[in-house]
């Protein structure tokens, strides 16, 4: 019996079944990984930032004394109260002046430090660390050192001891607003604490300026020093300067720790956050008015920041170099 055999046609391979999305496969997904890494931070952001902000805005329309779950809607009364409260309005005005002073001063000091450190041939890392270290110090600890050791009002405070060597009577630095010696205490503490951080930003930016620019300028006859600094260094730092000024402005309006600790319960030199602390958490326990004040302060910071961004071209830094 003959048997014929047909050549077996290779049957088309069955379409490969789409594999079930296994856990192992899911782990390979870039989208999944993105959410895996982002979600804890997103959850934190929503729970600890956005929900409190939303609740604060909600509270600002209610009479909320001694409670954070209010029931009596009062419309814009809290906003009216805060905007007519001389202490709160005064704190906003005072701190606009404070910001106008501390922002350029810190900018200049931190840029100066960065230029100095950048020029060093030896021990650059050491001095960079020395200037940066105060950033690691707590504002509260620094305030207490300033208040109790350096600027204590009695004869054995460091500054009064130094004054005593020259026959000058001791000064009660923080006790009285006239003359306003308290600003000297606050400004020196703040400069010491924050200049190192901004110095690092400037230092990074300085080290990114191509050396060829200076060489070309030298060939064109630019004198080193002020001329080079003004026409090359400063324009090259524009993007960093804009960011630094933005951060400094926000930090100035968010000032709390050193003012709270140095000027305990005074009516002068009170930044808005300390004023809001006393309104909401302090003696008044008025969470409605405190929330309204927080919304006003946030709006002010946004407006000032946008204005500053517009003025200095925030985001256009790279193009405008």
């Amino acid at each position: 019996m003959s048997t014929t055999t047909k050549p077996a046609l290779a049957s088309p391979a069955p379409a490969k079944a789409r594999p079930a999305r296994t856990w192992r496969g899911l782990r390979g997904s870039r989208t999944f990984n993105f959410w895996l890494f982002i979600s804890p931070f997103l959850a934190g952001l929503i729970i600890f930032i956005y929900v409190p902000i939303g609740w604060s805005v909600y509270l600002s329309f209610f009479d909320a004394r001694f409670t954070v779950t209010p029931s009596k809607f009062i419309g814009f009364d809290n906003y009216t109260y805060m905007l007519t409260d001389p202490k709160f309005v005064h704190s906003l005005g005072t701190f606009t002046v404070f910001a106008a002073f501390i922002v350029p001063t810190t900018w200049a000091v931190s840029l100066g430090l960065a230029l100095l450190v950048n020029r060093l041939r030896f021990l650059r890392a050491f001095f960079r660390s020395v200037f940066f270290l105060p950033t690691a110090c707590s504002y509260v600890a620094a305030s207490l050192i300033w208040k109790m050791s350096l600027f204590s009002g009695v004869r054995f405070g460091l500054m009064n001891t130094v004054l005593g060597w020259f026959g000058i009577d001791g000064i009660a630095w923080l006790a009285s607003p006239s003359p306003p010696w308290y600003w000297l205490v606050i400004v020196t503490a703040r400069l010491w604490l924050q200049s190192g951080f901004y110095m690092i930003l400037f230092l990074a930016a300085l080290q990114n300026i191509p050396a060829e620019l200076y060489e070309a300028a030298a060939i064109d006859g630019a004198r080193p020093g002020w001329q080079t600094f003004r026409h090359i260094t400063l324009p090259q730092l524009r993007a960093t300067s804009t960011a630094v000024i933005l951060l400094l402005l926000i930090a100035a309006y968010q000032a709390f720790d050193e003012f709270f600790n140095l000027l305990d319960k005074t009516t002068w030199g009170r930044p808005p956050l300390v004023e809001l602390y006393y309104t909401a958490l302090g003696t008044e326990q008025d969470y409605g008015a405190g929330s309204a004040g927080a919304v006003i302060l946030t709006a002010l910071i946004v407006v000032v920041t946008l204005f500053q961004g517009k003025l200095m071209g925030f985001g256009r830094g790279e193009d405008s170099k």
Partner: protein
Amino acid sequence: MSAQSNSTWDRRSLLRAAAGLAVAAPLAACGSNNGRGGGSGSGKQLTQMFHAYGEPGVEQAVKRYAAAYKKANVTTQWITSADYESKLFATLLTRNAPDVFEFHPQIQLVKSGQVADLSDIVNPVKDDFNAADITSHTVDGKIYGVRMIDDPQFFFYRPSLFEKAGVKVPETFDELMEAAAKLTTGKTKGVYLGNDLHAIVNPLIWSAGADTLNDKNEIAYHTPAVIEGLKKLRTLFASGHLLLGAPTDFWDPSALSQGLCAIQFCGMWAMPQFQKALGDDLGIFPFPKTVDSGKPSVYNGGWSMFVNAKGDNAEAAKEYVKWLWIDQKQYQEDFATSYGFHIPPRSSIAASATPLKSGLPAQGVKLFNQYGHFDNIGWTQAMIQATWDVIADCVRKNGDPEAALDTCDKTVGRELKKLFG
């Protein structure tokens, strides 16, 4: 039976378990660090909140009393922050609010339902308490707190320095200013009233013959005599004879005992520390009258125990307060006299407290009885803050006293309207 276990722990499983623990541990910790564990009693868990007393040994004593209570585990939150009232008020709004806490009688705590009515535990022994203390804790016939200690506040001075400078004990504020001028030397200032002058606000009002609020809960501090007193205080502030910016505040005896000043406003609680540092070279006198129509005054401060009415354990907390501050007389006497000197609010204990019967402590008790003013439950923290602002604005900042009092009136008036309609 296979020797191989089904539960094989490979490297990945271990890593997963470790990651799980790492996530769970902080979450568990979030809910555990509320000061509610570790008591020695049985049954309920209770938490009590105290501000930090300056006298050594008080914290240990408070914890020792709590440990002796057997019907509940009582743990202590010892708040070292200078801002005790802010911390307390904020905590009272949360689930971690203490069941029992010390504070001063203030009507907003009653109106907002934060403190429990303690009439049933106080009424049986009401007659044994200082009548003024009972009044200062009463709203609409109900008693809302148990006074633990009374703290008279007056001036401490060094008689040897007075003698050397030819100064007599001041009976008027003008004499106090003159004495401060004579006692000021290159190293020592004449007088210390605290860094922010807050402690002497009420004595200044009372010594001008005025009061914070009157019987009808209306403003009673805005008088010409108070304005005159404020002007005199400004003169003293600017004279260079007042100690400003001291390392420790008025409640600490260091300014006088370390020779920074010759006269210090302080409380009787610091008397043992003063005596230890200065021996017999120590005297006391009340806040002198600021105007001819005024009279000397002593602020009878103190601390009281309250029960959180909104807590889960209000009844157990009331039992604990009754046990400690009504029944345990030996602890009450120990608390009042073994560390700093305080006057026990219970007449029977005050009468038997040996350390207060002679010498300077006995003089302190005499000033307390003769010139003392007690807390007014209607005078709230917001009103107190408003008067602090008056001192800041017109004494430290040299503003107009009339204008400063007008601003104060607005805040106090708003507060009074909310509380009393």
